[in-house]
């Protein structure tokens, strides 16, 4: 057997081994992508139905007010947060730092406030939830 043959055979096995790893990684990535799509579908359905579990730390109070159909003034009042133009663009994360509260506690408080509002205004919340399925522009016009 010549040196060239041995060299080629070594390269062949090396490449075959790397290919096996690459195929394994591809399958793993494919499975992860599939799982990500499934998680997205689940969470998106929750968000569309107005589930308060989808509230995140990056959301601002006006954003939450529009997505979950609660008046901004009600949210600010219930959370004891000053409704100033400077705080309107602050996320829950920033507000939590500003008001010395843990972010998760603030999110939980927002969730409770929204649920309490829905209990108080069942008709208003359900009609808004139906309107939520329309495009954003028409929703804004309707409001």
């Amino acid at each position, binding site marked *: 057997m010549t040196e060239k043959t041995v060299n*080629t*055979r070594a390269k062949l096995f090396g*490449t075959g081994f790397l290919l096996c790893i690459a195929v394994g*990684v591809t399958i793993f990535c494919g499975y992860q992508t599939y799982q990500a799509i499934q998680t997205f579908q689940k969470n998106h359905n929750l968000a569309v139905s107005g589930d308060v579990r989808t509230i995140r730390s990056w959301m601002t109070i006006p954003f939450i007010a529009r997505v979950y159909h609660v008046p901004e003034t009600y949210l600010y009042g219930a959370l004891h947060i000053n409704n100033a133009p400077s705080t309107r663009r602050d*996320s829950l994360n920033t507000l939590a730092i500003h008001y010395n509260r843990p972010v998760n506690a603030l999110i939980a408080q927002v969730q409770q406030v929204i649920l309490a509002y829905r209990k108080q205004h069942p008709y208003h919340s359900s009609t808004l939830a139906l309107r939520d399925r329309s495009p954003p522009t028409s929703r804004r016009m309707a409001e």
Partner: protein
Amino acid sequence: MSVFLTTILTFFQSYGYPALWVSIFIAAVGVPLPVALVLLAAGAFAGLGDFNVFLLALVSITASVAGDTVGYLVGRKWGSRALDWLGRSRFGTRLFSPRAIVRSREEFNRRGGWAVFLTRFLVAALGGITNLIAGSELFPFRTFLACDIAGEVIGAVLPLSLGYAFGTSWEDVGDIFSQFSLLFLALLVAMLLFVRLLRYLRFARSIKRMEAARDIPATKSASRISPTHVSHLSHPSHAPHAPHAPHPSINPMIDPPTPSSGPLPGQ
């Protein structure tokens, strides 16, 4: 959510378009920031009327093209010098052969446009390094700019429109994005390895054929040699008359043909 993303989003929510421009520019220069996620979030905010989606797209495209150009120029100014030094110095020639550097330059000039275009939106993590390589490989600036703008338009419009469409679920869309990007990269590597493996297989087969061609005439000629010939050959006085002993270097049947596939793969 990562600390980087939270910081950039807070910065963006507080200062608006200029903050977005600065973050995207820094990311385009080469700092690894999760800009696609920021654009998805920006699209979500635009969907609820906080920002203008067209202005966001314009800001994003201009910032990323400016950042990419800076990366390219940095590569062109210092990267090409570094490559030249690598090609000349003893240390560099130990790491990469000068032939490999020349070949990589030729290869990038041939297919670099695709690399620039695809790394703008499909494998965005490699965008910064591609800009530096494009500059250091002296890739034509006009072609770079054309591919860059085309890629960045997709790279900005895609996440913005997805964020606009899916609103609060932008984080999950971002997850799909990053997973798909990894899947594409893994698939690309697997395909390249598969092509390489095929080449090696073909080459191994051609070597086998050559060896077989070398062996057959040798056995044939050996069988043609009769015992008397052998006795003649064994006697030193008869050695010049050895009738059919073929010389490997002059017999066309034994001389191995050069493989038609060209040079050795991987050399």
